[in-house]
């Protein structure tokens, strides 16, 4: 990670860049786009699926998926809101994703909340109503069962996921630098 990293290029027509610097692949499946908020400078890669149409039952506008800045949704990752019974009726609940979150390729995420500086490796399955606090690492191919709470500064792995390690105190700076660096390297082919 540094100034000499190679640039990740894409063909200009394949991604849409918004005013706030979000880069969204045209080949991503985004249902219910009016219910999805991107904080800016986030990247949604090819083949990912975001289900903004699975909203709460009450009338009016609802935010289904909210995402902070410098986030990355990898190729083929699926983000869908979790649903459960509440007072005898079924409803979906919103997904809140903070800043500096990297979600790897092929992940299935049905979490309720993902804190800032979280890195989810490729092929993970994050179950319904999982809460991931700030600064955590989910190693590739981890399966987190429904309702797991991942504390700060922890590393998780396995099926079912367990804590395997802790993170150093400097991890916040490392992760923020990594996310900014990735965003800067992800640009159209000249």
């Amino acid at each position, binding site marked *: 990670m540094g100034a000499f990293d190679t640039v990740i290029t894409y063909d200009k027509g394949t991604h849409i860049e918004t005013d706030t610097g979000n880069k969204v692949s045209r080949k991503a499946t985004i249902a219910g786009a009016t219910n999805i908020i991107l904080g800016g400078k986030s990247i949604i890669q090819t083949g990912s699926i975001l289900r903004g149409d*699975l909203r709460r039952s009450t009338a009016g506008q609802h935010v289904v998926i909210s995402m902070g800045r410098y986030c990355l949704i990898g190729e083929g990752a699926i983000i869908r809101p979790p649903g459960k019974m509440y007072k005898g009726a*079924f409803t979906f609940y919103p997904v809140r994703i903070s800043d500096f979150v990297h979600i790897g390729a092929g992940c299935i995420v049905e979490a309720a909340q993902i804190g800032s500086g979280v890195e989810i490796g490729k092929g993970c399955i994050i179950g319904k109503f999982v809460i991931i606090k700030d600064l955590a690492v989910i190693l590739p191919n981890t*399966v987190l069962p429904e309702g797991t709470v991942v504390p700060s500064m922890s590393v998780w792995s*396995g099926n079912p996921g367990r804590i395997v390690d802790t993170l150093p105190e400097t991890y916040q700076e490392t992760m923020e630098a990594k996310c900014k660096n990735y965003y800067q390297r992800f640009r159209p082919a000249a």
Partner: protein
Amino acid sequence: MSRSAAPPTRITAHSTSLICQDVDLRGDITIGPGVVVHPKASILALGGPIVIGAECVIEETVIIVNRGTEIMKIGDGNHFMVGSRIESPSIGDHNTFQPRCKASSGVIITDNCTLGAGTILLPLPTLPPNTTETLPPYTVIFGADSDRRIWDGSGEVAEKALRGKHIEYLREVIPK
């Protein structure tokens, strides 16, 4: 594999079923009442036909394949979650297929079974090769090693009620 051998697409969907855009349906498929098929799901009747019963939910990137020549019969109230891959020749009622599980063509699934997230269901290695195993009702497949155990059926009524409400709600919410 030659594509030309695939049978022509013939889909019979019940009037109360809900099939989203962007799904891949191939071959002879019958879909029962109240079924919800989410976008990006694939139902491929490459060999024999596929018959899906009432009130099933088929989520994103689920792949249901029938390579054999017999009818693949799927019962009522099954829930296929994101990314599961199903090749079983027969599936009973009220089964749950959690995200990214795989059910091979060598196992017949009965009723009220659960395949956990990321598990792979294969016939027991102690059986002679090329026999089809029948999974007993209430079996749960779980964990990294795809172990088996039997569910005692607690919370079954609540689970079924949840399914019913879930389908009802999906039908209301998903844009037509």
